[in-house]
C-alpha cells in the first residue's frame, strides 16, 4: 500500500508541452509512472513522449481515465489549472510551481475541500511511492520501497531523509512534499492521518521548518496517531526576525520559531531528531 498514489494511478500532466513539463514527463515515465496524457490549451492533438495532449482536463479525463494530475505551469495559471482539474473529477493534484499568489491558493483550497480532492504544493517536489510512482521532480537515487513514510515542507530535506532511510534499510512507503509556499494545498495533519490509515507505513518522519503555521496544526493529529511520528524542524539556530529563503519561512516575532514547533510536536508525542542520522537510531529504539 501507499498513500495518495500508486502504480495504478493514471497520471496526467498539465503543461505537458512546456519545457519543464516535457522534461519531467520523460523522467517520470522512465521511472515507471503511468502517465496517460496531458493538457496544453490550443495544442490538443499533439503528442509528448507518445502521450496525447488535450486542450482541457475534462477531455483528457474522458479519453484517458486520468485520476491524478501534476501541474507544470507558470504560477499565475495555477489557480485556474488546479480548479479545472478538481472540477473535472481529479482527486489528487500536485502543484510543482512556486510563488503561487496566496489568495489564489485560498480559492483552490476551498474548491478542493468541497470536492473532497487533495492538492499538494505549491513549490512541492511532488510525491514518490518508491518502486511504483515518481510524481514530481524527486531524484530516484534517494529512494527504495520500504516501511517509513515521510512528509516535508522542503524538497531537498525529503531527499536527505529518504536517502538516510534507504541507506539504513528502512526504505519508504510514500514520500510527500508539502511545498515551500506560504499557503499550501494540504497540511501536515492531513498527510499524517493518511499515513496512519496505511497498513504498510510503520512510522512517519515529519520535517518542518521555521516560520509558517502548518506544523502547529499537526499536534492534535499526532496525539491521536498509533503510528509513531519522528519530527525534525529546520532553523533551530536561525536568528529571529530574519527571512530565510522559502517564502513561508519567516519568523514573525515569537510565532513559528523552530524550537517552539519542535517542543510542541514533542509534547504531542513525536520523537524529535536533530540530524538525519538520528532517524534510523530512533526507529531502531522504537522497534520499527
Amino acid at each position, binding site marked *: 500500500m501507499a498513500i495518495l498514489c500508486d502504480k495504478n494511478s493514471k497520471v496526467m500532466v498539465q503543461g505537458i508541452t512546456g519545457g*519543464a513539463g516535457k522534461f519531467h514527463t520523460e*523522467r517520470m515515465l522512465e521511472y515507471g509512472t503511468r502517465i496517460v496524457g496531458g493538457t496544453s490549451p490550443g495544442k490538443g492533438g499533439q503528442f509528448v513522449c507518445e502521450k496525447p495532449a488535450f486542450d482541457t482536463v475534462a477531455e483528457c479525463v474522458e479519453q484517458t481515465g486520468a485520476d491524478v494530475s501534476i501541474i507544470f505551469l507558470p*504560477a*499565475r495559471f495555477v489557480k485556474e489549472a488546479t480548479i479545472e482539474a478538481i472540477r473535472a473529477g481529479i482527486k489528487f493534484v500536485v502543484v*510543482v510551481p*512556486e*510563488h*503561487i*499568489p*496566496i*489568495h489564489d491558493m*485560498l*480559492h483552490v*483550497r*476551498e474548491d478542493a475541500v468541497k470536492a473532497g480532492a487533495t492538492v499538494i504544493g505549491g*513549490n512541492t*517536489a511532488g510525491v514518490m511511492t518508491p518502486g511504483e510512482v515518481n510524481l*514530481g*521532480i*524527486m*531524484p530516484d*537515487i*534517494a529512494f527504495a520501497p520500504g516501511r517509513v513514510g515521510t512528509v*516535508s*515542507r*522542503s*524538497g*531537498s*530535506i525529503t*531527499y*536527505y531523509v529518504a*536517502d*538516510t532511510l534507504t541507506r539504513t534499510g528502512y526504505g519508504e512507503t510514500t514520500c510527500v512534499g508539502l511545498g*515551500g509556499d506560504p*499557503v499550501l494545498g494540504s*497540511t501536515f495533519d492531513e498527510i499524517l492521518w493518511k499515513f496512519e490509515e496505511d497498513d504498510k507505513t510503520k512510522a512517519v518522519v515529519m520535517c518542518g*521548518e*521555521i516560520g509558517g*503555521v*502548518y506544523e*502547529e*496544526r499537526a499536534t492534535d493529529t499526532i496525539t491521536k496517531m498509533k503510528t509513531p511520528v519522528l519530527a*525534525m524542524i*529546520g*532553523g*533551530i*539556530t*536561525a*536568528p529571529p526576525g*530574519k527571512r*530565510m*529563503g*522559502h*517564502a513561508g*519561512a519567516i519568523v514573525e*516575532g515569537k510565532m513559528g520559531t523552530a524550537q517552539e514547533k519542535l517542543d510542541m510536536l514533542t509534547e504531542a508525542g513525536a520523537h524529535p531528531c*536533530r*540530524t*538525519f*542520522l538520528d532517524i534510523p537510531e530512533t526507529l531502531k529504539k522504537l522497534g520499527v
Partner: protein
Amino acid sequence: MRLYEFEGKGLFKKFRIPVAESYLARTPDEVYEAVGRMSTRVVLKSQVLIGGRGKAGGIKFAGGANEARTVARELFKLKIRGYKVDSILLEPMLEIKQEYYLGVTLDRANYKLVVIASGEGGVDIEETAEKHPEKIVRKSFSIHEDLYTFDALDIAKKIGIPQELIKDGAAIVQGLYKMFKAYDAKLVEINPLVLTGDNKLLAADARVSLDDDALFRHPDLKEMDIEMRHEEGEMTPREKQATEWGIPYLDLGGDIGMFPGGAGFGIMGNDFISYFGGKVANFMDSGGGPSPERIAKMLVLLDENPNVAAIFGARFGGISRCDDFAKGVIMFLKDHGLSKPMVMRMTGNMWQEGVRLFEEEKEKNPELFKNVEAHGIETPIEEISKRAVELAKARSGGAK
C-alpha cells in the same frame, strides 16, 4: 511587500476610508513649505517600513514652518530599527477622543480571511489579544465571501463606535475588507482608527502588506509609484551584492560559508554546523533549477568574504540538475579560482553527468581542484558537515 503609510493611505482613499489631509516631504525645506500652507499644529511622521516608530522618536509635533523644519532635520538623521528616514508625512494634529483598532489579515492555518477589531487601538494589538482576548472582535470569512453591511455594523457596534457614526464605521470595515481582496493583501491595518474632536472617524495610520507573488495583477500600483522594494532595514555590502544578483542571502557572522542547494537544506544545514561545533557565515538559497552562472556567483560571494575560512557545499538535485551545478562550480574555479578549502557533496538528478564533468576537468586541470574535496551519495551529509567544521577550525587556527 510592505507599503509606507502614505502609500497605504493613498489606497485607503480609493476605498473611501477617510484619512487626514496630508503632505509628503523629502527634505527639511519641503517640510517648511508644506507646513507654511497648513494652518494648525502639525504632526511629522517618519515614513519607514517598520512598526514602533513612535517609541523610537520618529513622530514629532511642531507649531509652525520654522519649528517643523528644525524638527525635520533631526528626523531625517534618524534610523529607526535600522531603517533610514527618507520621507516625512505631514498631517494636521488631531484632537483624539477615542482610538480603535481595525485590521484584516490571513489565517493561513485555517485558510480564512479574518477581520480583527478592538475598542482599544493605538497599542500593540498582539499584546491586547494575549492579555485581554475579550477586548478583541474576530470574524472569519472565506475568500469567496463578501463582508456584508450587517456584519460590518456588528463589528462597528462591538468595538463601541458611537451610534451616530455607526454607518460610517461599518463603511470603513467594508472598505478595508474590499481593499484586502482587491489588492491581494496579506495585511491591512488601521491602528489607530480615531474618533476626532469634531466627531469624525479617520484612519490615523496605515499598515499594508501585499503579496509579492500577486503584484503582476496590480499594474496600477506602479502608476502610483509603488514598486517592489527591498524591505530589510540595513544590508551588508554582500547582502546588497547578492540582492542585485537575485540570490537570497544573509550574513550570519560565523566562518563557514554555506553553499547549499535550496532553502530547505540552506536552513537545516546551518543547524547541523552548529550541532557539530561550527558557526556559519551566511544563509543562502540557490532557488530551484539555478543556472551555472548563478552557482558561480554564489561561490564568488563566499570566496570573497574575508570571514569565511571554509566552504560547505551541498547539492541534492531535484529540479536543480547536478550537471548544471558542476558546470557552475567549474566556471567559478576557472574564472575566479577558489582560495579557501571547500568540502562538498553532490548527488541527485543527473549526478552521473555532474561527476563526469568534474573528472574530465580535473584530468585536464588538477590544479583547479586543489582546494576541493568532492563527495557523492556514499558520504552522509553529517560527515560533510563535520569536515567543514574541521576545515574552518584548521584555517582559523582557533584565532576566533
